């Protein structure tokens, strides 16, 4: 359970988030959605403490995140974020084993149990065969899966993901989010995920927080947030709901603001 109250953040003078509060309970997937620049990633960073809000607080299972030691926090909260690192000569297995770091003392080396956890995590994202390869030599999609494996190896009760489906093809987008949703629903983890794709959000999230213009525009169950009347003003695009096989799908149609081919030829 992660609860945040009254979070705010500004880059330089530009206010990105103002007085944002939310709750991410156990066993559910909370999706953070919103247009570019609405502060989704910033909010995620505030939630795991990479940024610390000058106002308000974040609590993890009731304890103030700011009061937790760095390693204690890392044992509770795992984060998947792809960084544009320099040339990194580590193998995939070493990369995943970094997730065991918070569980080891400074002088302790990784042992058999840690290796088993890492191997299992890699297998769960379908990347077991990548283990001895160089991380730097992987494709974007393979890297993403390895980073998710690292977060799994961390065995934290809370999992935060920033655009985990970036670089993944359709099948892996669904596999990864299915895996993540399974962690929430079956292993009762808390999952918070930043997503661009509203249809993925519709399928895999339980609750949504829609960000726009420095704050939360709407929050609640997926079905309540993914309404044309809610989405259209925020994204500036026409939204149509289609239900097939009992599943919700969204179709998008640009407003006349953007000239269509017909306007241009007229």
């Amino acid at each position, binding site marked *: 359970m992660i609860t945040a109250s009254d979070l705010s953040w500004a880059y330089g003078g530009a206010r990105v988030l103002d007085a944002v509060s939310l709750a991410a309970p156990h066993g559910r997937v909370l999706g953070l959605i919103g247009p570019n620049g609405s502060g989704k990633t910033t909010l995620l*960073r505030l939630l*795991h*403490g*990479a940024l610390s809000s000058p106002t308000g607080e974040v609590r993890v299972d009731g304890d103030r995140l700011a009061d937790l*030691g*760095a*390693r*204690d*926090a*890392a*044992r509770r*909260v*795992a*984060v998947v*974020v792809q*960084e*544009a*690192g*320099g*040339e*990194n*000569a*580590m*193998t995939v*297995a*070493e*990369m995943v*084993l*970094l*997730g065991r*770091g*918070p569980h*080891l003392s*400074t*002088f302790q*080396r990784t042992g058999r149990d840690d*290796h088993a956890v*890492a*191997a299992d995590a*890699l297998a769960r994202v379908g990347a*077991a*065969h990548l*283990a*001895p390869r160089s991380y*730097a030599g992987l494709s974007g999609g393979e890297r993403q899966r390895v980073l998710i494996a690292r977060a799994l190896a*961390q065995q934290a009760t809370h999992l935060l993901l920033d655009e985990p489906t970036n670089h993944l093809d359709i099948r892996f987008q669904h596999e990864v989010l299915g895996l993540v949703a399974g962690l929430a629903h079956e292993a009762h983890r808390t999952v918070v995920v930043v997503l661009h794709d509203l249809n993925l959000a519709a399928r895999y999230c339980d609750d949504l927080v829609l960000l726009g213009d420095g704050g939360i525009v709407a929050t609640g169950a997926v079905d309540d947030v993914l309404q044309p009347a809610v989405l259209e003003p925020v994204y500036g695009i026409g939204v149509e709901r289609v239900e097939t096989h009992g599943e919700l799908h969204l179709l998008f149609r640009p407003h006349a603001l953007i000239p269509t081919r017909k306007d241009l030829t007229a």
Partner: protein
Amino acid sequence: MASQGTAVLHAGDPLGLDALRRRTTLWTVGLGLGLVATVLAGVGIGAVSVPATTVAEVVGHHLLGWPGERTWSAAVDAIVWQVRLPRVLLGVLVGAGLAICGVALQAMVRNVLADPYLLGVNSGASSGAAAAILFGVGAGFAEHALQVTAFLGALAASLLVFLVARSAGRVTSVRILLAGVAVGYALYALTSFLIFASGSAEGARSVMFWLLGSLGLARWGLPLAVVAVVVGGVTLLLTVWGRRLDALAVGDETAHTLGVRPERLRLQLLVAVALCVGVVVSAAGSIGFVGLVVPHLARRAVGGGHVRVVGVAALMGAILLVWADVLARTLFAPQEIPIGIITSLVGAPFLLVLVRRLHATAS
């Protein structure tokens, strides 16, 4: 199917970690033996050449009292024990120190072109050395005046870099780089000014020689002991911090999510590296390229995990520097050339290859 083939290949070692460990052991043992051979050869080679067996006997005699009886001349004894061994040992320490500082800095600023001198520490040491050579500053420290003033200069430069890097809040890698480069240039200007102000051609030549590096000051005594303790300590520290360095090398946010506070670690590393580079440069001048090139060689040998890289880099740096020194004192014997010329000559082509490879991976 190919993937099944690899799966079978890695059965029993699904993560490929045992293979990695074997490779590391092989390299470590090989380089360890290489270092022993290097030290014996390095002490043996010179104007008076001494066979490796005699070198081993002289060292054994002095260290362990075995063999107890001297079968070699007093001159050979003095050459081996008083002149060449301290020099070779200093070479070992300086090479190892520069290499591990390079490893730490490249992880710290996440740039493969980072080298230990980016922190401006060597410019500070140079200013101190120039002040000692040209104006007799630190004469109170008698025979160690040069090393002590150089170290004080290095200390001042590190403090300056530290304060500038810390002044505006977040200690990012870019800020450390900028602070180091700025302080480095300022102190380089100071050194140049000292040379200019002294008006002594002979003094200028001495400073130049020192700037390019030399192990000629090596003696048994406190400075050598200090270098040994610092280089040994920092090697140990960086190995223990290996996992943290791994996390930091991936990225600040990643480090944070893995329970490592990136800014605090960077400051701690800054202190350790500045101290190590400070004592090394004070003892031997600014010897270039070792700290830049060796980390790459070490990573090529045993991969990116810092627990393994640090020790291997230390051994490689040690071997490389001793041989560079052998060349420096024998190529134009009896004239000795600055060791930095040798390391740069070897290092520059390597750098070009590296840049080509980087270019190839980027495109």
